[in-house]
């Protein structure tokens, strides 16, 4: 179990400290200063402040958090709802788990700041079902907040500031990380994403106005309120301020989490993780969780922020950095990636349901030495038929990594088909 990231900044500074997991310990280490500062301001002002901080959602899409909050309708009589997305399932991502285990009160404080700003009365923290221990940690924090009078009615001395929190356990479906899939799951249904519009701010959980933010996003918010926008903008880049918890996995000496400013060069992050294991050469890096197209050693200089990664044809995603050394067979990697997306497609849209199956079948056939001459053309065409054609972004997420692998490692696919076998005997077992 990870207790603390290998490098820390403001977010994870106290994660190694068990006292930080108790309400009293959290408060004595600066906890709830952000919320108290927020309560001194009008809700509108808080939204403007978070907007101007440039905080971008840490769940993968990188949308401006304050702007998202501003979409919540004003003067609407309906109960407004916040949903905290703890469905972390993107392969290569394991940061939200640590925040839930070691910084649950940060999440709750961020949630209450959002509740004040948007006038929300109810929150659901939806956490993936396998995260049994993180669920226990968040539940314990919520219970302590109720016992202390920090949740419920007229909280923090503000008459009329009411907020209730329900911790909801998911049941194992990657698609519930998609915000409308998550809302369906909250409503006790299959997690099949909804068509937009209507957007969640108009018609979200149970038909109520809803804002969905990621766990880490909420956890950053208190610091913006307590220490100010200028301070927050002192970390990261102009377009992507703040730090994030980069998760480094795969073929490195020291895999784990590293809290670093956004914009830290990819190579520096891998160095923090001890470099490629066994002194081997680097072959490929997936920079932001498995849905994101792969990069090569020539990209080690890229600053890890969305605006720079998109120039290289990939994205920051959730900051899950997967490192592959020179033994790795990229067709095997494609088999694992495509199996996952085939398995997790919710089956709603034909392009995705069928396309993910085709891609996986092709990858497997090529890896097994049974690839046919036309297979590569097909493998290039299928992703194109899926992208942008479906209700949600899952099909894009399934298409991108395959397109990325073909862009940089087409020769390996060709070699498999030509030799009718896998030319990488030392690669990881499939």
């Amino acid at each position, binding site marked *: 179990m990870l207790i603390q990231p290998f490098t820390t900044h403001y977010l994870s500074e106290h994660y190694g400290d068990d006292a930080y997991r108790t309400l009293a310990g959290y408060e004595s280490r600066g906890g709830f200063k952000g919320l108290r500062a927020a309560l001194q301001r009008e809700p509108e002002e808080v939204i403007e402040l978070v907007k101007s901080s440039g905080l971008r959602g840490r769940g993968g899409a990188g949308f401006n958090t304050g702007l998202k909050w501003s979409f919540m309708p004003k003067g609407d009589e309906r109960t407004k709802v916040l949903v905290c997305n703890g469905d972390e399932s993107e*392969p*290569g991502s394991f940061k939200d788990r640590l925040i839930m285990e070691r910084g649950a009160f940060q999440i709750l404080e961020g949630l209450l700041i959002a509740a004040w700003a948007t006038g929300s009365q109810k929150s659901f923290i939806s956490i993936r*079902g396998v995260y049994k221990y993180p669920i226990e940690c968040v539940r314990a924090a919520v219970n302590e907040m109720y016992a202390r009078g920090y949740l419920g009615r007229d909280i923090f001395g503000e008459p009329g500031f009411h907020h209730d929190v329900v911790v909801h356990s998911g049941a194992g479906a990657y698609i519930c990380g998609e915000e409308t899939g998550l809302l369906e799951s909250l409503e*006790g*249904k299959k997690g099949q994403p909804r068509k937009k519009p209507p957007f969640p701010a108009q018609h979200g*959980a149970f038909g109520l106005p809803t804002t969905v933010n990621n766990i880490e996003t909420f956890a950053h918010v208190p610091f913006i309120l307590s220490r100010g926008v200028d301070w927050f903008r002192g970390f990261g880049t102009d377009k992507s301020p703040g730090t994030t918890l980069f998760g480094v*996995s795969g073929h490195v000496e020291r895999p784990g989490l590293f809290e670093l400013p956004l914009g830290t060069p990819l190579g520096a992050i891998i160095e923090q993780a001890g470099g490629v294991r066994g002194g081997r050469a680097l072959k490929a890096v997936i920079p932001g969780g498995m849905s994101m197209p792969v990069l090569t050693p020539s990209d080690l200089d890229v600053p890890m922020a969305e605006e720079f990664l998109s120039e290289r044809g990939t994205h920051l995603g959730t900051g899950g950095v997967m490192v592959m050394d020179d033994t790795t067979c990229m067709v095997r990697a494609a088999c694992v990636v495509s199996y996952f997306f085939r398995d997790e497609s919710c089956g709603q849209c034909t392009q995705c349901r069928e396309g993910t199956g085709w891609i996986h079948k092709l990858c497997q056939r090529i890896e097994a030495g049974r690839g046919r001459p036309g297979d590569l053309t097909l493998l290039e065409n299928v992703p194109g038929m899926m992208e942008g054609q479906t209700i949600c972004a899952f099909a894009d997420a399934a298409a991108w990594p395959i397109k990325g692998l073909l862009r940089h490692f087409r020769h390996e696919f060709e070699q498999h088909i030509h030799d009718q076998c896998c030319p990488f005997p030392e690669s990881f077992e*499939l």
Partner: protein
Amino acid sequence: MKPETRKKIQDLFQHYPQRRGALLPAIYLVQEELGHVSPQSARELAELFEIEPVAVWEVLTFYNMFYTEPQGRHHVYVCTNLPCSLRGARTLLRGIEDHLGVSCGQTTSDGRVTLGHEECLGSCGTAPMMRVDGQYHENLDLDRALKIVDDLD
């Protein structure tokens, strides 16, 4: 299902703006009592939630963590997604298969262990790993994994 389970489910209703929101937690409660959700339990749930049985069944079969068939006393799931595979997860899974004499997805003949693999469990920094019932075991090698499996009752 037992009256206590039914009562616990009814207590869940108040937390959701609509009763149906409590369906996922309710299914967990049934599984806690019975190990899996049979067609009979699904019908009882449908009655309790005032929805069609098929509406319960489609939810049951959509999510990986719900079981419609009897399971072994323990679940052993090895994560085989890319970060774990890069660090030897599939070799580990083969080793456990050989040791238990079952293939992934099967239950040992004594009903002790159901072996499976799962997609990313959010343990990429501590790979390879496995989930045994509710608990994570991380940074595994085969010897340690087999010891954990052998210690299950």
